[in-house]
């Protein structure tokens, strides 16, 4: 048990280190943007008619703490970030945590739902495909997997929009119906979200499904050929029991491990799909921050949060694997 605690602790520390490196990357990127917060604040004032001087900008810099050395500001940012506090957005002049609010959680929920959808489809279908020697099934799955790669989610979203406008006269966009857009959370609003969210969930899960299918199928075909499966078959185990209790359990480890990268893949598509389907969540805010207003504070916060959720998921899957897989457990508890 003590060993297990030590294992969890090491993993947690490693995850922390990853996050700190990521925060350094993100923070340096934020610094690279031409112009800083002080200039932005005062540029706004300038448009209001009051003249500004270089001295004003310097004073504003001191007030915002922008004159401090890089490492100090980074340290301050990262400490705040771990407490969920990202400061104010220079452009929108609102607290970022407040601005993101439940938009980030909606995004994360959408992505996790697509991840679950992807694996709910990929695991059974992949196992069946690996077990059967049906050439038609295998080839069509292969084609589907490649299509998942070749047709990025945003093209799929465009195609679905194209067909739904032509045939149904509805673009199927948005996350909430008009009457719920700014309402407080209630049961009705949740139901409304769910009735609109199936399309983004499907589109976001599309390429992840294709990838997961390929992973599951490859892992299963590797395991099925092994001797212990033949031995189990010789002992009289057959059918579904053989598949689930022998090769599937062995293939489980790498599949659980790949969860984090699939979430990464889904996050990749999130902003663009959000743009096409006009979703109002963190992905759309990210595009807004980057492409339109150049709001580095907001963009940095969103990228950091997305990465943090991937790192957290990786940490959770590591621990889960240690609990589930006796081989990993044994190697920890020596």
């Amino acid at each position, binding site marked *: 048990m003590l060993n297990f605690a030590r294992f969890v602790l090491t993993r947690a520390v490693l995850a922390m280190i990853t996050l700190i490196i990521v925060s350094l990357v993100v923070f340096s990127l934020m610094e690279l943007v031409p112009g800083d917060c002080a200039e932005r604040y005062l540029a706004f004032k300038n448009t209001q008619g009051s003249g500004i001087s270089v001295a004003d900008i310097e004073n504003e810099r001191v007030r915002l703490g922008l004159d401090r050395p890089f490492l100090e500001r980074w340290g301050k940012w990262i400490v705040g970030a771990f407490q969920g506090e990202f400061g104010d957005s220079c452009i929108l002049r609102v607290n970022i945590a407040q601005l993101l609010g439940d938009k980030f959680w909606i995004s994360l929920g959408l992505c996790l739902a697509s991840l679950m959808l992807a694996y709910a489809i990929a695991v059974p279908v992949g196992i069946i495909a690996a077990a059967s020697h049906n050439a038609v099934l295998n080839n069509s799955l292969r084609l589907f997997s490649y299509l998942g790669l070749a047709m990025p989610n945003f093209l799929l979203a465009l195609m679905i929009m194209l067909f739904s406008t032509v045939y149904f006269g509805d673009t199927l966009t948005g996350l909430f119906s008009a009457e719920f857009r700014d309402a407080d959370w209630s049961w009705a609003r949740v139901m409304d979200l769910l009735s609109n969210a199936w399309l983004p969930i499907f589109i976001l899960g599309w390429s992840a499904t294709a990838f997961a299918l390929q992973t599951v199928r490859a892992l299963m075909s590797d395991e099925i050929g092994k001797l212990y499966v033949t031995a189990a078959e010789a002992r009289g185990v057959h059918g579904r029991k053989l598949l689930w209790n022998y090769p599937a359990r062995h293939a489980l480890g790498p599949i659980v491990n790949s969860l984090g990268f699939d979430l990464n893949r889904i996050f990749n598509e999130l902003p663009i799909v959000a743009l096409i389907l006009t979703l109002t969540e963190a992905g759309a805010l990210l*595009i807004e921050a980057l492409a339109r207003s150049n709001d580095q504070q907001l963009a940095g916060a969103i990228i950091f949060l997305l990465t943090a959720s991937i790192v957290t998921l990786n940490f959770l899957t590591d621990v889960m694997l240690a609990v589930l897989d006796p081989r990993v457990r044994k190697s920890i508890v020596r």
Partner: protein
Amino acid sequence: MTTTPDPLKPNLAETTGPHVQVVETEAAVERRSKEAYFTASQGQLIWARFKKQRSAMIAACVLAFLILSGIFAPFLSPYDPTIAGKNDDYLNGAPQIPMFCDSNGCSLRPFVHGVERERSLATNFRWVTTINEDERNYVYFFVEGWEYKLFGFIPMDTHLFGTQEGFVHVFGTDASGKDIFSRTFHAIWTSLQVGTIGVFIAFVLALVIGGVSGYYGGWIDSVLQMITDAVRTVPAIPLFMAVAAFMPPEMTAEQRFFYISLILGLIGWPTLARRVRTHLLTERNQEYVLAAQLCGASSGHVIRRHLLPSFTSYIIVDLVISFPYMVLSETALSFIGLGLKDPVNSLGVMLQNVTSADVLLNYQWYFIPVIFFIALVMAFVFVGDGLRDAADPYSDANK
């Protein structure tokens, strides 16, 4: 009795006897093919295995066709893909299929009808484009059109097809009257260029970082791997977007093009670097390397004769596989307006405005280039997959 064995046909003498004319028995043919197999170079082996895969071969043909059409894009396109080649009379025009017959009879040479755009009292003062059924614009091959430089230096003005008078738009036109057919082929060329530069930069970085990591091992390896993993954890496209957003807006189109390729390369290296490191680490400890070392081979000899050949094919495969990701990232970036911009043509640039209901309902031919891009990416994926199977010496054993 001794025979002098013919170096080209070893062992045949024993199977057929010295005085008999060489008769190719089945065994001899088989033996010879085995002989060829054992003496073949790695390239020949990979090619032989690659040829056996039907889907990969078809994909390779499609890919070759697309690459060629990218190289000869100016020759294939009847009109200048930039604003200079616009057709003012045919904005948002539907695709024109060259035809042989109309209500006025048939002709052997295909033609399209002329179009006119007018605004008058009769049209309620709106711009209306009408097709003039009586005007025939015949389509000719090898016509002279806009001037271009083939391969960047041969000045030419001949195009594969075109009309003497008027215009022919096989894939229709966009909102400013630019020919979508011409733009599509130029966009393929742009994507190939961006992908090549991006892959090359990523490859150099990966080779250096992965090479250092795999060669030195120890704590250097651990630190580099930690950084690589951290960079890999950040979702790539949001990161691309963040970097691309910092481009100064006054950049010219060409500068943007190189900047975008540079970004793709600078962010795309971690996956490749990891593969290089893994290859190096596993190959370094292989028994054949040990055997060579025990035979007294110098480390230079081991690297040149044993490690590099075992390695290059995998790296080439990795490059081919990572190529479509570069192309897709560029498309995504340009699509949201952070990547390339007019007058550079790329699929992302062409798709920028298609989400509007107007385009979705009325101008569906904007989506024609998508087919070519799916074909391009699919071809790369299939070829990459086929190459990977072909480069893996154990792939036959698994089947």
